[in-house]
């Protein structure tokens, strides 16, 4: 994309060159590889497009809807010179498109602007805290998968048995438990009564074991309700697969029920499960913001809530964009994982 106001002829030239380049690159590919490249490129294009639209939406909500964001941030009693300083800081004298591009260019180069309340670069604030929030989400995702897969597979393979009924009953409860309340109960039991864990706070990553330990209760609180959902999806997806014609075919080849399940049904059942895992990541990331409140973790959640109450829109804007960015990128990765699992996406019919 050229800078705004570039001469049209020049922009057109750029586009032509680019398309020739891509066309040449594609010329070396045979049909099958090209289908794969087309798929990946298509998903990538959709990723970029989603990011662009998402950034426009966030920008519009934060900087356009309030009218004058600076006076919104400072409130009605703001002094004129403070207001002017903030307006200059935010570049409010510039037209909207210019401000938008400046913001996006800043994001791309790692410049998230300066927090008005903390008087420090947002990038610094974020980089301190993201190392709490992101590991928490990933920790919870791993836990959720580790619990859900065996539970779902076990329940599906012994459909109708006491084990299946127990697991399904447990997932029914797991789906209904609010994770922040579950977190409070965990604190009550494991931190206050048993004193196995501390009730909150985060010691930093200098001592990784201590850090992991501090994240364990929050991760469990986050993971269990999601694991319940995932186990249900895994079970029903597997049962669908076990009803497919090709399972009967492999049984006719002499595979036992167990072999048919593990060698054929599980991999096929992963396709719908992957979608849920992708969606869950965004819930874990967002849910983490709430769980951080329970455990007094210095993550993005705290930063966001402090910024909201301080009306520090600059921080809110960038942190929200970062969250949405992460979610969109994870969904892109899930799409790529599809291609690894499902050959129908890799090659054309």
């Amino acid at each position, binding site marked *: 994309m050229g800078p705004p106001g570039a001469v049209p002829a020049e922009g057109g030239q750029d586009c032509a060159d680019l398309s020739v380049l891509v066309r040449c690159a594609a010329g070396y590919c045979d049909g099958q590889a090209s289908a794969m490249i087309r798929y990946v490129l298509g998903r990538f294009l*959709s990723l970029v*497009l*989603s990011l662009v*639209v*998402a950034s426009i*939406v*966030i920008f519009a*909500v*934060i900087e356009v*809807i*309030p009218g004058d964001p600076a006076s*919104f941030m400072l409130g009605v009693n703001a002094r004129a010179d403070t207001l002017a300083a903030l307006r200059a800081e935010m570049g409010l004298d510039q037209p909207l498109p210019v401000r938008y591009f400046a913001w996006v260019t800043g994001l791309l180069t790692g410049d998230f602007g300066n927090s008005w309340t903390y008087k420090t670069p947002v990038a610094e604030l974020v980089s301190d805290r993201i190392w709490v929030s992101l590991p928490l989400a990933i920790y919870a995702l791993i836990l959720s998968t580790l619990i859900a897969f065996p539970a779902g597979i076990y329940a599906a393979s012994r459909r109708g048995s006491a084990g299946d009924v127990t697991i399904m009953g447990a997932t*029914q*409860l797991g*789906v*209904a*438990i*609010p*994770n*922040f*309340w579950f977190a*409070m*109960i965990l*604190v*009550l039991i494991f931190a*206050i009564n048993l004193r196995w864990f501390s009730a909150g706070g985060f010691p930093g990553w200098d001592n990784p074991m201590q850090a992991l330990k501090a994240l364990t209760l929050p991760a469990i609180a986050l993971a269990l309700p999601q694991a319940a*959902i995932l186990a*249900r*999806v895994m079970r*029903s997806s597997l049962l669908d697969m076990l009803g497919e014609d090709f399972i009967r075919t492999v049984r006719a080849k002499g595979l036992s029920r167990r072999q048919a399940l593990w060698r054929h049904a599980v991999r096929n059942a992963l396709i719908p499960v992957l979608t*849920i895992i992708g*969606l*869950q990541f*965004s*819930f874990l*990331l*967002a*849910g983490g*913001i*709430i769980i951080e*409140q*329970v455990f007094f973790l210095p993550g993005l*959640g705290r930063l*966001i*809530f402090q*910024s*909201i109450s301080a*009306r520090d*829109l600059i921080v*809110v804007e960038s942190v*929200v964009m970062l*969250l*949405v960015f992460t*979610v*969109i990128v994870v*969904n892109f990765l899930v799409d790529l994982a599809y291609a690894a699992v499902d050959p129908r996406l890799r090659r054309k019919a």
Partner: protein
Amino acid sequence: MSRGLIIGAALSVVFVVLAALSFIWTPFDIETLNIPNKLKPPSGAHWLGTDHFGRDILSMIMMGARTSIAVALLAVGIGMAVGVPLGLLAAARHGSLLDELIMRGNDLVFAFPSLVIAILITAVFGASAVNAIIAIGIFNVPVFARLTRGAALPLWERDFILAARVCGKSAARISVEHILPNITNLMIVQGTIQFSLGILAEAALSYIGLGAQPPTASWGRMLADAQTLVSIAPHTALVPGFAILLMVLGLNLLGDGLRDWLDPRIRVARV
């Protein structure tokens, strides 16, 4: 009818009745503070005990049920009112630019969990129950749009739709006359599930202060207030938590039961 359906329906009805009853009667007035009587465990006078202001927790739960149900129900309403027509439209124009646009739009909204939407809205407009409704409602739109489109597409391949087209019926008319009646069961089941998710989301939002504001009672806020008291007066945290758990459990059992009863082939999306 399965046992799950009956238990689920019973639990749901209990909470709806409690919420309705709160309009005319609660055991105690929750707007009068009674500090000396604070943090009392459950007793004959206060069945579920009192909170840190000495308010009757049962009364708070009844008022909170009102908030939860209202927010979740309206959010499901928004999701259905916008999502179902979008899904029908996308299915009717399958493969067109419009379809692509609707689906991409859906994907985009999915990248904004309801919490993030709530953060955005609250940052600009301040916190309120209405914002919670909008945030959860927006998130419900793509759920219903996707589900509707997904259920409508195979129906469009069926011969009876082709027969209707041969009879000169328009896509809009076919959508209303033939598609909609065949996806009603699915919508009822998914609506119940989204209702339960709405209860959870409302609780989470009011817990972090992005939902209903005091003096409106809400279960999430009760939990937030209880957080620092959990070791001294566990009932203040346990009661609202179980209220949420039971209501959501009831709705989920109702949804699953309805599915098995109406049409076992229905697949619900749970995200």
